[in-house]
């Protein structure tokens, strides 16, 4: 049972006794204690700061409430029924899903490419790292001004560049069919740096020895990437995919920024779930309805996350 040192200390003998009580060994006991003692305070914080308020807000989905008046009417699943028939809600799901698929895909691909290119440490590489991270820390007020200019139909940078290739000016924010693409490009632009840094951490953590060994076996650049980097990057890639998906489904600021003001895009063309929730909650004060919508959003994202975990399962030590 125990790989004991010759003389067990008092501590160790007490642990043995306690562990024996639960039919586990001393090592397992110390592990369990560590787990509970570390997790308890953290979970307590989660409970207070997240679980309790979230539950409280989800509860509201079964009521008709304007948040202000304490007289709430319990209406069971009515809010959810109404949601299923709400054209705007369906539109929001469609837009958000399109946004998530395109946004996550492009953001990860580009960030991965960048991470691979910049993995080798160099002065120039370091500069590029910083520059590509800048959008992540640039405040939205600057982002909004510049991107509204980039997308401007008459004087915008994008149409100007496209005109070099003979492409006619596109109403990026005005054309409802294109507006969503415009927001996707913006969101991808802002998030590349974030994903790039995480993938850089992942790539640089891969020990040299693996590459050296593979090269001795004759592997070249692409082979190294496919058979060493990618597999070892799997847990990180899973992280990036899941987090990007969750963030994509929760997108709000770029949509809000591009639609406010008189030069903004049309609301419905880029209506996303959180935008719809915000409108129902804070413009119309239909809090029960908005909560039901939030519950639906949560369920969709939860489902997607679980699916992604299963797909990435083979590399998990779970």
């Amino acid at each position, binding site marked *: 049972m125990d790989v004991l040192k010759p003389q067990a200390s008092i501590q160790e003998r007490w642990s043995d006794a306690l562990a024996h009580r639960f039919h586990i060994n001393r090592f397992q006991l110390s592990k369990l204690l560590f787990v509970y003692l570390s997790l308890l305070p953290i979970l307590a914080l989660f409970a207070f700061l997240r679980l309790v308020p979230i539950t409280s807000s989800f509860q509201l989905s079964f009521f008709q409430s304007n*948040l202000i*008046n304490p007289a709430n009417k319990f209406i069971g699943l009515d809010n959810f029924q109404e949601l299923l028939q709400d054209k705007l809600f369906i539109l929001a799901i469609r837009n958000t899903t399109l946004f998530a698929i395109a946004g996550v895909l492009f953001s990860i691909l580009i960030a991965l490419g960048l991470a691979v290119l910049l993995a080798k440490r160099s002065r120039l590489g370091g500069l590029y790292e910083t520059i590509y991270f800048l959008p992540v820390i640039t405040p939205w007020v600057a982002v909004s001004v510049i991107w509204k200019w980039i997308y401007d139909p008459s004087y915008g940078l994008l149409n100007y560049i496209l005109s070099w290739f003979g492409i006619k000016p596109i*109403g990026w924010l005005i054309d409802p069919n294109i507006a969503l693409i415009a927001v996707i490009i913006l969101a991808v632009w802002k998030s590349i740096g974030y994903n790039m840094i995480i993938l850089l951490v992942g790539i640089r953590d891969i020990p040299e020895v693996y590459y050296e060994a593979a090269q001795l076996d004759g592997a070249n650049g692409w082979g190294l990437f496919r058979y060493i980097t990618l597999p070892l990057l799997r847990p990180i890639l899973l992280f990036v995919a899941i987090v990007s998906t969750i963030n994509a489904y929760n997108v709000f600021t770029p949509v809000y920024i591009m*639609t406010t003001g*008189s030069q903004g*895009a049309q*609301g419905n063309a880029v209506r996303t779930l959180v935008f719809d929730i915000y*409108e129902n909650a*804070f413009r119309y004060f239909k809090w029960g309805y908005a909560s039901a919508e939030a519950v639906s959003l949560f369920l969709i994202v939860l489902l997607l996350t679980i699916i992604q975990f299963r797909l990435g399962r083979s590399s998990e030590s779970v």
Partner: protein
Amino acid sequence: MLYQMSRNTFLQRFALLILALGLGMVILACAGQPLAPQAPTAPTAQPPAAQATSAPAATSATSSNQPVKLTIWSGYPEMEPWYKEVTDAYTKEHPNVTFEILTFPLRDYEQKLSATIPSDTAADIIEVSSFVAKFVDAGLIPPAPDKIAEWNNAPGRYDAAIVKDLTYNGKQYAVPLFYGSTALYYNKKDFADAGLTKPPETFDELMDDAQKLTQRDASGNITVAGHGFRLFGAGSGVAEKFLFYLWPAGGDIIVPVGDKWKEGYNNDAGRWALKYYIDALYKYKVDDPKLKRDAEGFELGQSATFFRESWVIGDIKKNAPTLDYSTAPVPKGPKRWGHIIAGEDLFVTRTAKNPDVAWDFILFAVQPQYMQDLLRNVGWLPSRHDVDYGPVLKDNPQFAGFVFSDPNYQAYMTPAIPVFDEVETKMAERLIQLYTDASLLDNPDGIAKAVADMAAETNSILDKAGVLAK
């Protein structure tokens, strides 16, 4: 342990810079700011009893020696300097009263009110519009003392519509502070170039003038819009601006029927207003979606005329000080003549520990000299009409369109019912689509159907909220 500190000189210098900046901030923070005027702190020693001021109402709290702290919240950050001016003046006269002013961007402010008023953690004085209706409905805001109603009701002091806006169940709840109103901004140089001597007086004239004012380049693209319409943007703005054309035609977004409501534009007025837009865009071509609109467009010279509130005047002074422009009253429509107004009023919440001091301050703040300063420095229109704004107007003649008065020039407001926002927003979404539909040109049936469909949605929203008149 496993790594050593690197020695990159650039990084060192940059870090030193930040350190210096941070240290500077810390020192400044701890030492208080020499640059900004300090609000005087309430002295703990007994100050001399404050004399009654020229403030119209005398109160007992101001002559007491108890230190009083009043908190004020506003959703208009541009008002902050004005609040500072007025509170500083009040503290000078009543040294035992100090203030804390917080201003927030409007949308976030409304979220804050939604959390703080029901939980009794709001400020003592809040500046807010009829957004407050839902809180009053829930009994969370106390009505104002009778003397306030007396003050508000003085003849010629405030617009009847504004006072009605802060009256719930026969009781008044606030003192009006400022309001937004609409006028026609017009570029005088463009007018002169087009041979026009005066701003249009009817909507038909506006359309004619717009055609003369529209400028095009060699390839026929519009470079200056004769009239800048509000064509897109999220929220209810598009519908709100549509109302500027709808109301003079005799229509309304919703009309009261007893204590319920129903749509008010599935009629000639609604069809006329939509036709106005369609004709402007596709028949006479006086505006182009690709141009900039709103204040920005006007300041950049991309539109010759447009409708907006008075804050643009201050904006133009800052961003386009050489622009040669003025304002005119909203033109006469086929049926009515008037302008929309939306009021911001000062309320006292139920958690205020010294409500009498709060109301005293509010009445102090609406004295003539501060109303003039509001107009002069902030640009929103002070609600008080019984003040001589002559000196301000002399220096800023562009306010002409806003201070215009005529017995036949009416002021109208949008209803303060909770569901109105939803009605307007959904209408805005539809309108944005309709404006892009060129097939509506010279298509009275198409227009009639579009308006009817939109009105049906308005009614269904009212129905769902239980306020539809059947």
